[in-house]
């Protein structure tokens, strides 16, 4: 709560900057609209305007600047326009009982969320299994760890179209599976690194103590290493779920998907409707915020029950 005032101040500054930027970004569009409405515009010809700098245009046509704040297809929409579009495609449709219509962002967000969660689950399982193998086997540690790092330096977007082609050739219907694979690829690494750190966090003295109790390897794992790794695990899960969402959206972007938030961005680009792109972007941001917040709450609850000092 101590940070609330600074955060709000910075947010207000960002919104103010955004509003200030709308005028120069949209001046050309505003002048086109004004010209079509029959107003006087300097210079009068669209081609001549194209060669003028935007600052000059703004100085010469100051009475038309305001038009830039209410264009149908703005280069840069105002926050209010984005918010209105977001409400139109989510809340308003839900109120009319069409929350799952194909034009509603709730439906597309749901599609994206499904792949994200599948990818997150797959990536978490892979990451945890890999971490356990790395901690317990020296061979795996020495051969797998360098490749885990290298795998993250490979831009997954280059592979994404291939994964989608491959999975459709192998006979997997739909896009949920390839998208989940892409998000698992991005998501497993933070989990792996965090878990390796966590499983190795118990000191030699603690491990020795368990040995004096003649605890078996499994007991040492379940009663010492696993609980000790929980704070590390949750921190990396929060990074992992954000990465999984990025992976899903990357999987939806390049290859002609028709549903999902990434596909909305793609379709908005193809049909020249910037408002749809911005609304989908903000929906994705809100989704990311909700997912990370949920994991944060789970982390707090779990750690409190385990008696870990936050």
């Amino acid at each position, binding site marked *: 709560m*101590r*940070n609330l*005032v*600074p*955060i*709000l*101040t*910075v*947010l207000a500054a*960002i919104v103010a900057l955004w509003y200030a930027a709308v005028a120069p970004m949209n001046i050309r569009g505003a002048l086109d609209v004004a010209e079509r409405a029959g107003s006087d515009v300097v210079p009068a010809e669209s081609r001549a305007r194209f060669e003028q700098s935007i600052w000059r245009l703004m100085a010469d046509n100051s009475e038309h600047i305001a038009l830039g704040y209410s264009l149908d297809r703005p*280069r840069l929409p105002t926050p209010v326009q984005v918010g209105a579009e977001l409400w139109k495609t989510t809340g308003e449709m839900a109120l009319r009982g069409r929350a799952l219509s194909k034009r509603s962002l709730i439906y597309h967000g749901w599609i994206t969320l499904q792949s994200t969660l599948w990818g997150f689950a797959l990536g978490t399982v892979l990451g945890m299994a890999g971490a356990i193998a790395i901690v317990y086997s*020296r*061979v795996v*540690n*020495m*051969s*797998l*760890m*360098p*490749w885990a*790092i*290298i795998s993250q*330096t*490979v*831009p*997954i*977007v*280059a*592979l994404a*179209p*291939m994964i989608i*082609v*491959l999975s459709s*050739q*192998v006979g997997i219907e739909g896009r949920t599976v390839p998208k989940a694979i892409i998000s698992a690829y991005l998501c497993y690494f933070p989990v792996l690194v965090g878990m390796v750190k966590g499983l190795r966090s118990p000191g030699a003295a603690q491990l020795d103590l368990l040995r004096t109790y003649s605890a078996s390897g499994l007991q040492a794992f379940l009663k010492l290493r696993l609980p000790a790794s929980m704070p590390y695990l949750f921190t990396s899960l929060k*990074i992992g779920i*954000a990465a999984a*969402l*990025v992976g899903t*959206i*990357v999987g939806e*972007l*390049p*290859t002609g998907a028709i549903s999902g*938030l*990434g596909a909305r*961005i*793609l379709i*908005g*680009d193809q049909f020249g409707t*910037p408002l749809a*792109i*911005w609304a*989908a*972007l903000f929906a*994705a*941001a809100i989704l*990311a*915020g909700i997912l*990370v917040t949920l994991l944060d709450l789970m982390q707090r609850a779990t750690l409190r029950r385990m008696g870990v000092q936050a």
Partner: protein
Amino acid sequence: MSWLIFALVFWIGAWALNAFLANSAWRTSLAVRVLIPVLFGVTLIVLWEGIVRGFGVSPVILPAPSTVAQTFVASTDILWEDFQQTVLKGALSGFVIGGLAAFAAAILIDRSAFLTRGLLPIGNFVAALPIVGIAPILVSWFGFDWHSKAAVVVVMVFFPILVNTVQGLRETDAMQRDLMRTYAASYFDTLLKLRLPAALPFVFNGLKIATTLALIGAIVAEYFGSPTRGMGFRISTGVGSLSIDLVWAEIAVSAMAGTAFYGLVAWFEKRVTFWHPSHRGH
């Protein structure tokens, strides 16, 4: 069939050799530490080759590594052109601009404790967002050539570097800052001689995250429109025209570029932050 058996035998043999090496007396030597992962990687490629040949997988679905290597050698001029367009012009220039901007912004923000408290949570949140989605907007703002790709990269790398640098600048403790004050050091002296060096491990952490993001941004932006060259362009058209071997060659280039880029930053980090505990004692 013989290919499949060969691949399996190679796998078992390589695994046994790795297991032997990892538990042998030479396991701490540099040669073995390099050899083991290399052997692991080679095994994966041999398995891939064996499966493709053994099951007779169509090259339209998955070409064998040997086919990809042939295509790679045969089309180095195309690959080099794409590499220049995407990596050198798009990713690298965006990385440099975004990195410098983030660094400068971090130093300015750091002067105000109020701004730092407000910006860190927002920056952390934005760094976790799927910013790649902004690519079509920036492509429509800055045109099809590499400028729009660089712009996407700037936006993508800005926040991770900003957040890490701001966090790093807060790393010094009161004792160290007080010591600088007893030396009558000015703000800039303290910044240059104490706080920036202390922040370097964090800065490099941000830079390393940003290397991957830079390549992702540059390639994704090309899916939304580019001149008739570039890695993203070649991949998306290659998938459409079924020249899958060329696509895999591009993937190989992007993998090597990504690894080299990361390796370069990591090497630089080691040279600059040799004093940090994580780099001592090797």
